[in-house]
């Protein structure tokens, strides 16, 4: 841990606190664009076709924009500037939703938001890496996951209250307002605490540019990266449809309690992530990455099997603890493993975008696949098929993925 201390003192407290709050408020802002969009546009008398179109366009954009977004962050010299502009664009987008909900405006706002989000994911990881360096990045990522999880939970509660008491439009005005503390928190991070080379996963002291001329070609030959992308894709393919399937099952079982139960099913994993992710960050260093990945995949396999057979709605809520375990591990380990396998290339963020695309792809196919299976063959078959995908992910980690934790001489690599 003291390995790169001689070259550089740790980041100032002001910067680390700034990053904490930036992650927290950004999660708040992003929550406003989640489920509230469909509700709001419905109250604005939009038809389901139009709402579906907006959601598809924005989903597709955030899928295709991941790699260019990562490349942009790699290319930029100031992650703070890029992130600040992206937050400002999201604020403008929320304002557009609130003020003028007509189709062309909302379409542009949705595109603006999707593009900005593609930049922000890599930007946070890049700022973290640039701030603390590789040796303690796992702890930092654990801290990020905790603040993001608390932020999303608090925001959902606040926005839900506003939406219930005032209107769905108020949710977007709150989102606009929350963009302001987000930018202020970002401004608290000192620019000279962020080492731009480290933020891009380049080795700070090198003079020659190394392999920075080619980009995707280099990543495509990076076997551990491809294997890891496959793992997260299989994971998301298994994971994304589980909660929606459980939700529709609950609605058919107990209509009175379903909304409260589904809400609890969404909150429980958030609490687990907030509690567990710093621990994951420390263990990733002491145990290594593979044991934690096996825990995450194993928890998903277990959850899928339980969902296939458990009928009691209260037990279903408890099973969601497993969701939180998987989510805590992955929210720390996705950026961490990408750091591991690309460090020194200078294309850390591009690689993040690549893995982000794999995640998004798995998630979007998951919904279609599970929805179809559930309609045709029932929930058990749907859950067991998802579980099979999770088991495949487990096997890939067990049999193919190398341990990516750097050796103790990482500073000299």
């Amino acid at each position: 841990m003291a390995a790169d201390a001689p070259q550089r003192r740790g980041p100032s407290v002001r910067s680390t606190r700034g990053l904490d709050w930036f992650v927290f408020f950004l999660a708040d802002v992003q929550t406003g664009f989640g489920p509230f969009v469909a509700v709001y546009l419905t109250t604005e008398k939009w038809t389901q076709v139009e709402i579906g179109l907006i959601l598809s366009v924005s989903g597709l954009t955030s899928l295709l924009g991941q790699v260019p977004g990562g490349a942009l962050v790699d290319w930029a010299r100031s992650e703070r500037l890029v992130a600040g502009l992206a937050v400002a664009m999201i604020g403008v987008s929320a304002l557009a939703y609130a003020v003028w909900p007509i189709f062309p405006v909302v379409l542009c706002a949705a595109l603006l938001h999707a593009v900005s989000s593609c930049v922000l994911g890599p930007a946070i990881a890049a700022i973290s890496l640039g701030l603390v360096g590789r040796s303690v990045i796992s702890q930092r990522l654990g801290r990020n996951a905790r603040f993001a999880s608390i932020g999303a939970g608090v925001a959902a509660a606040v926005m839900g209250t506003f939406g219930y008491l005032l209107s769905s439009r108020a949710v977007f005005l709150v989102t606009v307002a929350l963009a302001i503390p987000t930018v202020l928190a970002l401004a608290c991070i000192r620019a000279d605490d962020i080492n731009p080379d480290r933020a891009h996963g380049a080795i700070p002291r090198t003079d020659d540019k190394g392999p920075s001329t080619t980009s995707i070609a280099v990543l495509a030959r990076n076997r551990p990266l491809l294997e890891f992308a496959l793992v997260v894709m299989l994971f998301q393919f298994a994971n994304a449809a589980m909660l929606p399937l459980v939700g529709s099952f609950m609605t058919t079982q107990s209509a009175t309690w379903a909304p409260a139960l589904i809400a609890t099913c969404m909150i429980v994993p958030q609490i687990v992530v907030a509690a567990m992710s710093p621990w994951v960050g420390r263990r990733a260093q002491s145990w290594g990455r593979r044991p934690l990945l096996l825990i995450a995949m194993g928890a998903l396999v277990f959850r899928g099997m339980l969902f296939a057979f458990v009928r009691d709605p209260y037990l279903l809520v408890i099973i969601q603890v497993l969701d939180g375990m998987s989510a805590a591990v992955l929210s720390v380990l996705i950026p961490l493993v990408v750091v591991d396998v690309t460090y020194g290339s200078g294309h850390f963020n591009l690689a993040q975008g690549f893995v982000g695309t794999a995640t998004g792809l798995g998630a979007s196919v998951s919904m279609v696949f599970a929805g179809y299976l559930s309609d045709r063959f029932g929930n058990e078959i749907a859950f067991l098929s998802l579980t099979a995908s999770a088991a495949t992910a487990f096997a890939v980690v067990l049999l193919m993925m190398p341990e990516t934790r750097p050796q103790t001489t990482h500073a000299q690599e």
Partner: protein
Amino acid sequence: MKPLPIAVISAFAFPRSDKEGFVGAKRSDIGVILAAILLVTLPQVVPATDNPKPESPPAAAEPSVTVIDGAAVRGILGRTVQGADGKDMGRIVDIMVDPAGQARAAIIDFGGFLGVGSRKIAVSWNALHFAGAVKNRDDIKLEATRDQLKTAPEYREGNPVVVIGSTGALEPLDFPPATTPEK
């Protein structure tokens, strides 16, 4: 595409008086709502038709204009629906009409939390009461409870539409009808 066959929902399929404003518009192909909105906005359109441009052909007859008091009709898309027990049942997202333009069912987005676990369910037009919603901006009232709706299958375009009636029973809207209760 073959128009959706009509089923006999019940003997009380005739519109009540508080819905005459919608049904009387005779533009219901595109949905009752559009007709209502059109009628409400017509007063602004009327001045434009008062001075027709010279090139407009005289063959077309003047369209008949009905002006309805703005407080007597109201759009209902996106409005919340309240169940018989006062519980929130979701929002109206679509309205199903038969070939005669008669509204037969409303699609409500039912249950779930923030979009997770919600389903689109067709409820009988006759089980919905709009009086409070139109006059006082209250919720639309539905003569059914959440528990009566929970087993209803999801509405999907192209599939037979299963409509929940006021008794809470499921009524398929798609069996081949020989008779339609037309006036």
